[in-house]
């Protein structure tokens, strides 16, 4: 049993961390967040090096690597809150790849994999608000069960931009157009999309822990760094626990997608439930541990909180996934009894 990354995966992680660290600094994120724009330069660059297609099969223009590699990129981009439509694009690509017909794959995957097209995903019953929908070329709508869905070309639809709390991922209401039903294994694609979202959340958490620990070591009150007070240090410890717990479940789910797909459905639900909760809790604690500064616009903590909130509800909140976990566990218990 080995939870470590292999040499190639570690290379990917190292390259990603360096690139994202340089191109998506806190200043750049703030600049784009305040303008409500995507960093098109960075997005173009990511497309050129094939990141959006890392897990897409080579025959569809991707790199043909796995979910573990995709999760690494999601995590690194999440850690920086990079203002690029990476997550919505790879989520849409995963669902089209597994749920789409040959024609649908041929139409969308090569462009999505190369970053020439931007994707977005949304729950069909979430009143047509699509995270990242303002700039998407293709929108995948998934029903509540996660077992069926449709794909809509934005060019044919009515897209009305909406100001949502996370401006780094411009949202829109998407209506009309001509949704085409996805007839393949939509659930397999949705599970992979859930893992990608959960991986981004782990990155958001990780960055929040680092930022908060650095702050409470510096900030002094009563003549001592506030991080020495257990009311603060224990909160930081809890942030780490929540992050590591989610990370372990995301690692497992990503590995299942590549090596044990029969276990992916449950693993993805557990990962999304834990990561959604962790994202909210950890970024909330980050604001709290920063004190008054944390509540200000310029402290940059709020971008994390806002991204976490958007990801937490994307393709179902923690509660929906927890309920699914309970149903799957109950089915296992019942079959063990009858076996």
């Amino acid at each position, binding site marked *: 049993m080995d939870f470590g990354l292999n040499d190639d995966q570690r290379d990917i992680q190292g390259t990603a961390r360096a690139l994202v660290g340089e191109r998506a600094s806190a200043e750049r994120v703030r600049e784009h967040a305040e303008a409500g724009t995507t960093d098109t330069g960075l997005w173009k660059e990511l497309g050129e090096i094939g990141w959006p297609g890392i897990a897409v099969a080579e025959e569809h223009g991707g790199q043909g690597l796995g979910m573990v590699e995709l999760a690494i990129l999601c995590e690194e981009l999440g850690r920086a809150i990079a203002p690029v439509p990476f997550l919505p694009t790879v989520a849409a690509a995963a669902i089209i790849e597994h749920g789409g017909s040959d024609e649908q794959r041929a139409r969308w995957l090569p462009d999505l994999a190369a970053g020439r097209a931007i994707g977005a995903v949304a729950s069909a019953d979430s009143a047509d608000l699509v995270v990242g929908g303002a700039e998407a070329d293709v929108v995948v709508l998934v029903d509540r069960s996660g077992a069926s869905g449709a794909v809509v070309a934005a060019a044919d639809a009515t897209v009305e931009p909406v100001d949502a709390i996370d401006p780094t991922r411009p949202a829109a209401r998407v209506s009309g157009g001509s949704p085409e039903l996805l007839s393949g294994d939509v659930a397999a694609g949705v599970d992979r999309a859930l893992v990608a979202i959960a991986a981004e959340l782990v990155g958001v958490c990780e960055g929040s822990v680092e930022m908060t620990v650095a702050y409470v*070591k510096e900030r002094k009150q009563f003549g001592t760094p506030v991080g020495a007070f257990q009311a603060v240090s*224990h909160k930081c410890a809890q942030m*780490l626990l929540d992050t590591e717990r989610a990370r372990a479940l995301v690692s497992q789910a990503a590995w299942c997608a590549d090596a044990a797909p029969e276990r992916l459905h449950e693993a993805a639900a557990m990962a999304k*439930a834990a990561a959604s909760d962790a994202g909210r809790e950890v970024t909330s604690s980050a604001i709290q541990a920063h004190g008054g500064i944390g509540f200000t616009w310029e402290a940059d903590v709020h971008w994390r909180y806002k991204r976490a909130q958007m990801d937490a509800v994307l393709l179902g909140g923690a509660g929906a996934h*927890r309920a699914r976990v*309970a149903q799957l*566990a109950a089915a296992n*218990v019942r079959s063990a*009894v009858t076996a």
Partner: protein
Amino acid sequence: MDLTFSDTELAFRDELRGWLADNPAPPRPAEGGDDADFAWRRDWQRTLSDAGWAAPHWPAEFGGRGATLTQSAIYFEELGRARVPLPANVLGLLLGGPTLMVWGTDEQKDRYLPPILTGEEIWCQGFSEPGAGSDLAALQTKAVKDGDEWVVSGQKVWTSAAQWSKWCMLVTRTDGDVPKHKGLTYFLMDMEQPGVTVRPLKQITGEAEFNELFLEDVRIPDANVVGGVGNGWKVALTTLMNERAGLGFALQVRLRQYLDDLIAAADERGVLDAYAGELGELHTRCESIRLLAWKGLTDVEKYGQPGPEGSLVKWLWSDTNQRATQLAADIVGPDALTYGNDWSYELLRARGNTIEGGTTEILKNIVAERVLGLPRLKAAA
């Protein structure tokens, strides 16, 4: 990343699983209380040791199988899975033996290890004192040299299995003039001698797993010093480092079984939907405990370095176990609160989980200081 066992590990697991299926533990005695329970676990250890399954993590030269860390974890998972009791001499097998293997003389190893394995001589751990819990190095029990013997007086507490033990891993103060971590010495104390008084400590479950240990002018031969005079802190750390190594895997499996039982209970009562959120949450937490435990273990095995998982796993497990027992009371209803069933027992017993083997507060300090590198608040003088 590969979350499967190797062929060798699977073969080890299947051999043990087969043996456990062929050699079921006798049922737990219905009467006779703690003594009968302990005798039952002692017999079970004999059965295990006769088949070479009492301590697979011990090197072959001492009667073990030289099992890897992974195999040792598999061993505890399988004991949990088969719902058999842990061997009676679990403290000797997990703590005492491995400590002697590191610090003991050849004579000590030859003399003490074999009867640990068979359960012939039971071991207990004399570390905590009324005034030295989380702050273990503050302990006061004194040992004074007298010829080739030491004379020991003091009090220990939370001493599990002391009433059945032959040997006690005893940490004492042998030098009061040096900083507190430096003046300690680790002894093996014969429990069967005048001056040793064991008083069972009745806990909130009504049973007595723990004892108070009163020592009055107890004599210990110099040959029973482990690891040298004044080196007791280091030897004690070796013991403590082994404390959670394997046991956690058995506990993690038990929690999974408990949750499965609870899911079945909810299903049977038609309240699965009403409690689906909390059941799903606990199931998810339980899975993350399993993964973090395995991640911690395999990181040590592969990279020689433990990650932050050790403290996180114990913290998360104890918290989750407590939540599970509370949820059981909701699902089962007032019947869960009557004596004589597992639900009420676990509800009470679980309160100890966040205290024993390192309180959650201390674990949070460890995570904050050693993993996150946060500054330490100076303790009040």
